[in-house]
Structures are given as structure tokens and as C-alpha cells.
């Protein structure tokens, strides 16, 4: 039995039992479904995307109030009552709720998501509180009393008034949403979403607009909440601001975290646990403590602290591990068709592809780069060397769009790149690796490499959710596998990237850069941590790439590696270029010897020069 069979068995069992369950259980299940829908959005946001929101309850509220207002307001019925039949009003309410939620979420996201991560949750706290105070005071929405008389949803003349019939719809919607989200995560777009958590600089260098992805994930979570709110309003048939309060928003987050914020089924587990627990606690605690009030929040908070300290990934991974013993892993199905990825032609050999003119970078009083000039031509390997602290890494950031130079010019493919983000560099054909390896350690090696080919795919979120991206996805994965094999790591494609040795992880980064079909390759200490034979293999690979016409810039400390490989060498010291030329010229340069060996006495220095020659 595979995981998929188990899921299907669960769905079938639930459907079969639905007609026989007592009314009370059906109602509880319907609410669990509603909450799980919201929690699933939070899983995407928190566990996968590395953001969070305490304001999901308010998004549920905007979905619920939108439909309640459309269905009950005399203003609306006066405006469209003659044209639209009453049975259609809930659907107009759904559309209205989605539009309103979309606008609010997009606005909040656009403002906060380009800032560092903790501003979004703080903003959602403010939004959650404001929503409660606002809707509690708007007279046309019933103030704190709320809106009564929300009609049931009617489909083809069949009324979904009872929890038993609407509950079925709720679970249908939930399961469909889980399926779509699962598909989304298992795609090119999913890889980019996963990179939002802890890999933004890297993802930008692979051409992913992480700010935009963050907004989209946030909007997606908000829309799921609004959908839940729409169903809630037509289940409850009456709404007031209380269930959309900040406390409930926090409860939704508890569900996602306790269940397992990185796993879609964790949302269902968390929603079920918290809902059932809350019911028990509301029964027991007031009797135990001798007064009434929301005491369950004490238990929830302590439970949350315990889970965060002891099971950082929530309870689902534990459940899955226990269950995993009895399941066999699914075999990936072969795609029916595959397609050819676009490849831009490389520039002619000898043409300057990357150029830095008088690049200067100051950090306060410290000049990290002082008027550095250098260029990289197609079909050559240019090495940048210099002692520790010479400003190589800063320079690397300047020519890859991670940071802006204070003055000077960076040109890529003969285009001025001042102020451009690193994804613009990637779009012009620049691929790079990082000095401190930036891989998603828990994801498989091949997924990491495929992220490098991100820009070569086109399919978007909707296509991914509906599995219309399989041919392209197969092509991307095949490309990733080809680059991995080329770099000699084909056998490790399916292990987690974090389990490889550091030297191998560096090579995975090279494969990832190559998957993007770059014209310029920036390698930051690629040979560090490699053994002798691995270094030789790397040198062969770089030689091959040079022959294909790539322009390669290497920062490296291993002099033997550099001097045997590079066509030209530039030497930095204290942020300034002190020498440039062929490896032989640079080796003979007394300034370089001085920089590397310190201020030695004249005779000793001569002896060293003699040795080098």
C-alpha cells in the first residue's frame, strides 16, 4: 500500500460513514473541515513559505461578511434583485468575498512582504484587531450583534441547509484544495515557494522574484480563509464579529503548528485535534477552575510551547513516520510527453560578457572595493584571487546584483545593471554559486538543481495545481539530472542535499547554475573541500565549459588549481587591484608575493621569487 492508497482509503471511509454518523459528529466534522481549509493556507504560508499570519480569522471574516451582506442587504436586493434570482446570491457573495479578500491581502502583502519577515505577522495582528473593531462598529453590518438570516446555498434546486449536506461540500472543497496545493508544491513553482524559507538570496539568483512569490502565497492563504468563511456563513446562517477575532486567528495558527506546519495533512490533523480538544476543555476547565471563561487558551498555549520546543515540525511527521513503516514509497509515474527547454545562443568567443568599471563599495568608512576594473570574456576562465579580507566576496556581490556598488558601473551582456536585483542578472544569463553553500538541505539534490532551471519553465500556479505542467516538469527534471550527471553526482540525485559532504554540495551548486543554461558563470571557491581527484574532475568540467564558450569567473584560494586553469588572473588586496595578467605574469609580480607572504626581508623575498620562477 502506498501513501496515495491510504489517502484514498481515508476519503472512501469518510464518504461511506457520512450518512450513518450522528448529527453531532457530522457538525463537528464540518467545522473541522472549515478550520482545516484555513490551516492548510497557513501551512503554505508558515511551514512552506516561512512567513506567518495571525489575521487569518479576519480573512475568514471578510469572506463570511461579504456573502452575508450580499445575501441580506436591502441595498443589494434593490440594486440587482430584479435581475438575479435569489438562489444565485450566495455565488455572487462568494465572488465578492474573493475579490475583497484578494484586494486586502494583496495590499497588506505588497506593503510588508518586501520587508524582513516579522513585519507581516505584526501587520496581520493589527489587521486582525482592526477587523474586529471595525465590523463590530459598522451599523449596516449589524455591529456587534451581527447579521442574521443568511440563506443556504442552493445547487440545482437542492438546498444545502443541513450540516450533513453542506459538510459534504466542505470536505469536498477541502480535499480538492489539498490536492491542488499538493500538486503546486510538487512543481517548478513549488520549488520556488520552498526557497522562500531561508533561501531567498539564492532563489533570487536563480531568477525567482521572491517578493512576488511571497505575496502570492499570502494571497493564496487569505483566499482559502475567505472560502472557508463563505462556507461558514452559509453553514451557520448567522454571523457576528466574534469568530473572526484575533484570538481565533491565533487558534488557526495553533492548528497549523501543532499539526505540522510543513505538511498539508498536518493542517487536517491540527484542526481536528484543536477542535476536539477545545470542546472537551470548554466542558472540563470551567468546572475544574470554578469559573467560566476562555481557559482553554492556557492549555493551547502550553501545548504549543511544548510542541515548538520538542516537536519543532509538529505532530504530523511523527504520525507519518509511524505509518511509514507499513507503507511503501510511491513510484513516480512516467510523464506521457516531454518538451524541449529553450536555450539562448551563447555570445561569440572573446566578446566581453561581464564588465566592472571602477566599482567602489563603502561600508561607512571602510572601503571594501576601491575602483575595481575587470572583465570576463566568453570562452575564458578568469580567476580572482587575493588574501582573506581583500574584498573578493563584496566584489562578487556587486557583480551579481546581491548588493549595489557605491559608485562605478557593472555591465552584463553590454547592459547597464546599476540597481538591478540579482534575478535580472539571472535573466541575462548569469549563473553563480555561493561561498557559503546555499542549498535547501532537506530537499532532494535533484530538486535543488532543478531550481536552477526555474527561468526556463513557463507554467504558472494554476497549471501546476491542475497538473497541466507535467511535460515541462519532466523536461526540467531531466535537465537537472543531466547536469548532475555531467558534474559526476548522478547517483546522489534522490538523497537530501544536506546529507552530502560539503565539497559535493559545492558541486551541486555548480550543477544548479548550469541547469539555467548560463552564458556567464561565477564560481565562489568551487574547489574548497574537494579531494584531489574531485578537483581534477572539476578542472576538466570547467575546461569543457570554457570550450563550449562560457565566460567563467572563479574566486579561489587553491593556487595550483587556479594557475593551471585560468587564462587571466586578477589580484585584489585591501579592496584594490594590485596585479592582473596571465598566471605566469601574476606569479612573478613582487606585489602579489608581498601580499601573500607578508612583508618579508629583501633577500628572503628574492629567494621566493627565484623559487616561483
Amino acid at each position, binding site marked *: 500500500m502506498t501513501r496515495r492508497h491510504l489517502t484514498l482509503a481515508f476519503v472512501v471511509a469518510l464518504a461511506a460513514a457520512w450518512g450513518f454518523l450522528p448529527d453531532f459528529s457530522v457538525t463537528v466534522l464540518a467545522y473541522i473541515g472549515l478550520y482545516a481549509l484555513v490551516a492548510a493556507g497557513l501551512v503554505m504560508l508558515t511551514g512552506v513559505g516561512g512567513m506567518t499570519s495571525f489575521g487569518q480569522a479576519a480573512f475568514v471574516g471578510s469572506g463570511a461578511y461579504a456573502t452575508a451582506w450580499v445575501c441580506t442587504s436591502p441595498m443589494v436586493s434593490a440594486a440587482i434583485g430584479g435581475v438575479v434570482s435569489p438562489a444565485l446570491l450566495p455565488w455572487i457573495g462568494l465572488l465578492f468575498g474573493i475579490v475583497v479578500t484578494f484586494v486586502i491581502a494583496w495590499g497588506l502583502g505588497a506593503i510588508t512582504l518586501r520587508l524582513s519577515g516579522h513585519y507581516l505577522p*505584526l501587520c496581520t495582528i493589527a489587521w486582525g*484587531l482592526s477587523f474586529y473593531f471595525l465590523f463590530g462598529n459598522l451599523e449596516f453590518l449589524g455591529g456587534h450583534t451581527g447579521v442574521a438570516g443568511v440563506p443556504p446555498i442552493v445547487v440545482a434546486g437542492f438546498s444545502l441547509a443541513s450540516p450533513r449536506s453542506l459538510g459534504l461540500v466542505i470536505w469536498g472543497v477541502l480535499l480538492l484544495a489539498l490536492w491542488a496545493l499538493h500538486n503546486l508544491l510538487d512543481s517548478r513553482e513549488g520549488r520556488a515557494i520552498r526557497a522562500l524559507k531561508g533561501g531567498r538570496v539564492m532563489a533570487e539568483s536563480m531568477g525567482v522574484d521572491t517578493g512576488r512569490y511571497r505575496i502570492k502565497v499570502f494571497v493564496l492563504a487569505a483566499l482559502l480563509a475567505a472560502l472557508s468563511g463563505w462556507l461558514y456563513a452559509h453553514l451557520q446562517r448567522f454571523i457576528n464579529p466574534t469568530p473572526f477575532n484575533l484570538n481565533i486567528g*491565533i487558534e488557526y495558527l495553533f492548528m497549523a503548528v501543532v499539526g505540522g506546519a510543513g505538511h498539508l495533512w498536518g493542517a487536517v490533523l491540527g484542526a481536528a485535534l484543536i477542535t476536539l480538544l477545545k470542546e472537551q476543555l470548554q466542558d472540563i476547565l470551567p468546572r475544574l477552575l470554578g469559573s467560566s471563561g476562555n*481557559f482553554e487558551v492556557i492549555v493551547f498555549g502550553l501545548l504549543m510551547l511544548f510542541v515548538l520546543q520538542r516537536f519543532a515540525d509538529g505532530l504530523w511527521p511523527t504520525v507519518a513516520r509511524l505509518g511509514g513503516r507499513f507503507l511503501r514509497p510511491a513510484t513516480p509515474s512516467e510523464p506521457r510527453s516531454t518538451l524541449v527547454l529553450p536555450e539562448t545562443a551563447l555570445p561569440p568567443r572573446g566578446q566581453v560578457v561581464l564588465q566592472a568599471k571602477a566599482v567602489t563599495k563603502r561600508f561607512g568608512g571602510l572601503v571594501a572595493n576601491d575602483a575595481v576594473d575587470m572583465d570576463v570574456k566568453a570562452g575564458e576562465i578568469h580567476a580572482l584571487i587575493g588574501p582573506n579580507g581583500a574584498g573578493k566576496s563584496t566584489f562578487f556581490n556587486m557583480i551579481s546584483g546581491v548588493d549595489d556598488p557605491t559608485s562605478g558601473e557593472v555591465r552584463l551582456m553590454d547592459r547597464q545593471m546599476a540597481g538591478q536585483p540579482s534575478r535580472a542578472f539571472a535573466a541575462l544569463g548569469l549563473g553563480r554559486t555561493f561561498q557559503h553553500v546555499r542549498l535547501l538541505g532537506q530537499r532532494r539534490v535533484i530538486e535543488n538543481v532543478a531550481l536552477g532551471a526555474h527561468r526556463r519553465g513557463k507554467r504558472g500556479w494554476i497549471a501546476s495545481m491542475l497538473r497541466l505542467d507535467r511535460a515541462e516538469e519532466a523536461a526540467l527534471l531531466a535537465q537537472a539530472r543531466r547536469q548532475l550527471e555531467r558534474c559526476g553526482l548522478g547517483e546522489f540525485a534522490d538523497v537530501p542535499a544536506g546529507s552530502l559532504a560539503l565539497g559535493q554540495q559545492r558541486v551541486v551548486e555548480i550543477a544548479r547554475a548550469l541547469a539555467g543554461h548560463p552564458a556567464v558563470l561565477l564560481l565562489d571557491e568551487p574547489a574548497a573541500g574537494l579531494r584531489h581527484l574531485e578537483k581534477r574532475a572539476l578542472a576538466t568540467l570547467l575546461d569543457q565549459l570554457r570550450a563550449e564558450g562560457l565566460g567563467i569567473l572563479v574566486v579561489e584560494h587553491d593556487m595550483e588549481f587556479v594557475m593551471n586553469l585560468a587564462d587571466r588572473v586578477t589580484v585584489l588586496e585591501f579592496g584594490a587591484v594590485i596585479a592582473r595578467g596571465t598566471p605566469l605574469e601574476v606569479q612573478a609580480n613582487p606585489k602579489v608575493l608581498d601580499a601573500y607572504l607578508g612583508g618579508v626581508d629583501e633577500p628572503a623575498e628574492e629567494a621566493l621569487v627565484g623559487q616561483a620562477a
Partner: protein
Amino acid sequence: MDLQIALILGQDGIVNGAIYGLMALALVLVFSVTRVIFIPQGEFVAFSALSVVALQAGRVPATLWLLLALAVAALAVELWRWKRGAAVDWASTIAWCVVFPLIASALVLLLRPESLLMQTLTALAVIVPLGPLLYRLAYRPLADATVLTLLIVSVALHGVLVGLGLLFFGAEGSRTPAFSELRLDLGGVAITGQSLVVVAVTAALVVLMFLFFERSIVGKALRATAINRVGARLMGIPTGLSGDLSFALAAAIGAVSGLLIAPLTTIYYDTGFLIGLKGFVAAIVGGLASYPLALVGALIVGQLEAFSSFWASAFKEVFVFTLIIPVLWWRSLSSRHVEDEE
């Protein structure tokens, strides 16, 4: 609105703004030193105010039992860590888990303070050690987690403390007597002694904090930790110490704020949350990093609240909390390059 009303509202705004300013200072301090976004900051406000109320009614404030329970739990955790071979700083542990709780118990149970001053000091003695104890129990095991995880811990802790607040103090609100019954008439505007006390104490605390961070070696160590955690540790500044200290300071500031505001407004078990959040709005103005900007933000929040309570009192919270949207938008204009989250 005439000038007189404007002056009264302005005065209200300054007094409330002073309290929000204190909250903001504590939040910036805790965040910059420990990366914890300390949502439960406001709970100290309510706990200290309601503890004084209990003392005045001749009851033992339940916060004392909370303190003792946390002290025992923290001591147990330290013992367990010590048994498993972790390095435990026993001097600070004994201080926070034994000495301070004993002092607080002695003050509450043996001395049974009668005067307002002694009741105030007793409340401080009960509330201040809560800060480091909560830090040790809730945050320290996760000291290396992301800002996001620490924020979720904060929210969970807030839930626990608000629930306990309801259990300890009930749902009814209370006020405490003013520290000063003075009333001044300044050009037709009545100025109460209590609002002068609030502003004066706030100013004194700000000056004290400035001196502490600029002049004392411990204050400098905290600042060093805020600027570079790893670097500070390499220089021999223990991370635990900076955590304990910043949380103790935050608790002290919260407790003082509670004592200051309790005579001016009715305090409920959950009042602190909103006060703390308004402090956040102020702190966000300063990017959670700048103390002076946070104080400016606090004054803006205070004024906005005072004047919106006059024009649209039902929506004053909405105005205050939506203030962060233009502030964040303005901040986002200056950030273009992405950075990895810590």
C-alpha cells in the same frame, strides 16, 4: 473643537504616549538583544496593576503563586540540564529562582504592606522576576530558532498569560488610587498630578536607560549583543545573561507602566495586550531598532488615539492599528535587495 478641548486631548495623548513609549522601549530592547518579538509585554502591565489592587484589598495577589510556580519549574529545568552535562550559571539561577521569589514572598506574606509606596514596591518585586523566568522556560530552549518561531512562541505565551490573568483576577476591571491628588489649572486646562507623575517617571526611566546603556559595562554588553550576537559571545558575554537581563528590564518597565496607568484608566485582565500592541506600533516606527524613533512613534500613537477618540471614538483602535500600514509602506520604499531570514 475649541482650543481647550484640543489641549485636553493633547494632554491625554502625551500621557498615553508616554506609556506606549515605555512599552516600545522594552520591545525594542528585547527584540534587539534576543530577537524575540515580545507580544506578552503588555501582560506585565495588567499583572502589576491588578496585583496592587489585590494587595490593597488585603488579598495575596495570585501572581505570587505564578512566580513561585515558574521559579520551581525553572529550577527543575536547570537541574535537569545540569544532570545532562550542560553548563549552568548557578549564581544567576539562584538569584532568579530562589532569592527574588523569596523576597517577593516575604514582602507579600510577612510584611503585608499597607502604604501605597510599599504595595507598589511589592508588586514590582513580584512582577520583575517573571521576565527572566519566562525567558528561561519559554524562549531559551529555542534561542537558535528563527524570529518567526520565537514570535509564535510569544503568541502562545500571550495566550497562556491572558488565560491565567482571567483566572487570577476575574473579568472585572479595577483602578488604583492616584500617586498624586494634585490638580493644577494651567490657562483653563486642568492638569492632574497623576499625569505629571506619568510623564516624569517616563522621562526618568528614559534617562536611566540611556545612562545604563551608555555608561555601565552591563549595558554596553547588552548593546554589543544586540549588534552582533556571535561576536558578543566570543568576547565572553554570556547569551543567557543578556536574555535574563533584557527580560528583567522589560518586566520592570511593564510593571512600572502598569502602576502608572492604573489610576488613570480601568485595567482588566486583558487590557495589557492592547497597550503592548500600541507600543509595537510605536516601535515599528523606529524599525524595532531605534529608541528615539520609537519614542517619537509613541507620541504620534498617543495623539492619534486621543484625537480619534474625540471624533470617532468607536473606531479609535482601528485608526491606531492601521497607522502601521503607511509606516511600513514608507519603510518598504527604502528596501530593495532581499536578505535571508535569520
